């Protein structure tokens, strides 16, 4: 019995330690999104949904996460979040981040933003257009 309790306490301790390490890791990475050279030309995204995501990101997200990096909010292009989780976060908001309901953003628009963020995280820039 004592052995089980000790094991349980040990497991709890390990989980707590892991949570602390993960927390610190996320915290430390929150301000260090990779910086790339500014674009030398006007670019468009390779798909309509990505372009739409880019426009929506600028309108709804970039003020707190300028360029996807940390500002008032955490950096959001330096974490391996799957699109589903990004969409969940946009819809529900977490912590101080407000939720964006379906009156503000349709399901398709939320998906477009999530797709664009994953695209940004992969360091892609888009396709050059004449200007």
């Amino acid at each position: 019995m004592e052995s089980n309790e000790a094991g349980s306490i040990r497991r709890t301790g390990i989980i707590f330690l892991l949570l602390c390490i993960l927390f610190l890791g996320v915290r430390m990475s929150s301000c260090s999104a990779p910086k790339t050279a500014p674009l030398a030309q006007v670019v468009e995204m390779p798909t309509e949904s990505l372009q739409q995501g880019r426009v929506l990101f600028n309108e709804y997200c970039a003020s707190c996460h300028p360029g996807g990096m940390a500002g008032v909010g955490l950096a959001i292009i330096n974490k391996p979040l799957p699109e589903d989780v990004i969409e969940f976060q946009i819809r529900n908001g977490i912590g101080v981040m407000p939720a964006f309901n379906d009156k503000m953003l349709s399901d398709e628009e939320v998906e477009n933003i999530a797709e664009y963020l994953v695209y940004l995280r992969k360091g892609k820039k888009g396709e050059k257009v004449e200007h």
Partner: protein
Amino acid sequence: MTTFLVNSNLMKGHLNIILFLGILFLVSGCYRIMSSDGGGQLSYDPDRRNIDPADVLLPEGYEIEVVARDLTFPTAVTFDEQGTPYVIEAGYSYGEVFLEPKLLRVEPDGSRTTIFTGEINGPWNGVTYYNEHFFISEGGELKGGKILKVNKEGEAEVLVDGLPSLGDHHTNGPVIKEGYVYFGQGTATNSGVVGLDNAEFGWLYRYEDFHDIPCKDILVNPLTFETENVLTDASDDIAVTGPFSPYNKTVEPNQVIEGALPCTGAIMRIPVDGGDLELVAWGFRNPYGMAVAPDGEIYITQNSYDVRGSRPVWGTGDLLWKLEKNRWYGWPDYNGSHKITNLEVPGKDSPAPVMAQYPEEPPHPVATFGVHSSSNGISFSTNKNFGFNGQAFVAQFGDMAPGVGKVLAPVGFKVVRVDVDSGIVEEFAVNKAVKNGPATWLKSGGLERPVSVSFNPSGDALYIVDFGIMTMTDKGPNPMKKSGVIWKVTKQDQ
């Protein structure tokens, strides 16, 4: 067995997502205990400014050089018919530094010749050259804002004075269009209520009755905000202040605040040779930068709300507006198309609405910038050889955290460009580093606080006016004299 494995894997997948969301929740929930890490929050005291163009990152094919250095609080550049640059030194900076503002001609070797010295009533926030005259927006922190008209011999006349610039924000702009000088007038306060933040700025002790003035009659809610009364010696004295009211004065239920001209938070205009002042549009917070686009429309940058004072507002990005005559742009209850009354301030309630009725729904902004980025001066590219023809270039002074609110990393401190059709904002000139920040924060020699940008008359060079070092200390902003720089960006293959 197979079913068990599938279930087990599914459970693991769900657990991973739950764990990940849990971590996110944990991180986000700790926002309130995270410390601010703004670009002016240095761990050391910079005694001088390093300047090295090689530390500035530009798009491929562009180069940057230093045109002038050792300026004290420069805020804007303009050009005469020959393309000679002229710079203004503001003569005032947050941190309550008062100096003589100056209009200076920049010589080819970077030295300066004084054209005109103003009275101590800065900050001079903008200058534009038109028809052999310089038009200057005099901020008017001590005596009220003015629009000055100065010729090359240094003879000045006042086109308008008595503008309500004694508070947080000043007289801005100007631009010339169709025979009129258009200029911006910032608000007295952050969000309509005089409070302790205004005492920290310094002006409340000078002008106890100063407050915001609406441009047209407005019906306000009888909100009251209690603070320590800093204007009396009694330590337990409480001041109760209402919106659009002097400090320690309240409004009655159903009270209409009378509109007046001049007013705060507005774009106004006056003929270039002087004449009657006219209201163009109202409901701005701090309309700082102004530029006439190639299509003749006027665009305006707006510094949005801070998390300070009796009515703090959280999470509102700076805005780029297209000016539409006679429109109301939403201050003090909206930021862009969004009501700030829906924005919860971390650890506090959402701001209550000040206005009981709105003149209209505000227009939709052209673009949104980073919260606290202090997106200021603006200029349009008109030369295809320079590139980005028709796009707006905007100087971002950078955050003044923690005074304006908390940031988790420096915001601004660069020049961005905006596609005004789509609202997409991209970096143009930014410091080389893994992280974003001013040169002193990065301990490099790049951009510090870009405050305005101006293309030269031929459009083949972009001049960046860099205000210089301003750190944020326990006592507030601490600007450094003789740390301002003018940079020049050109494209090499044009």
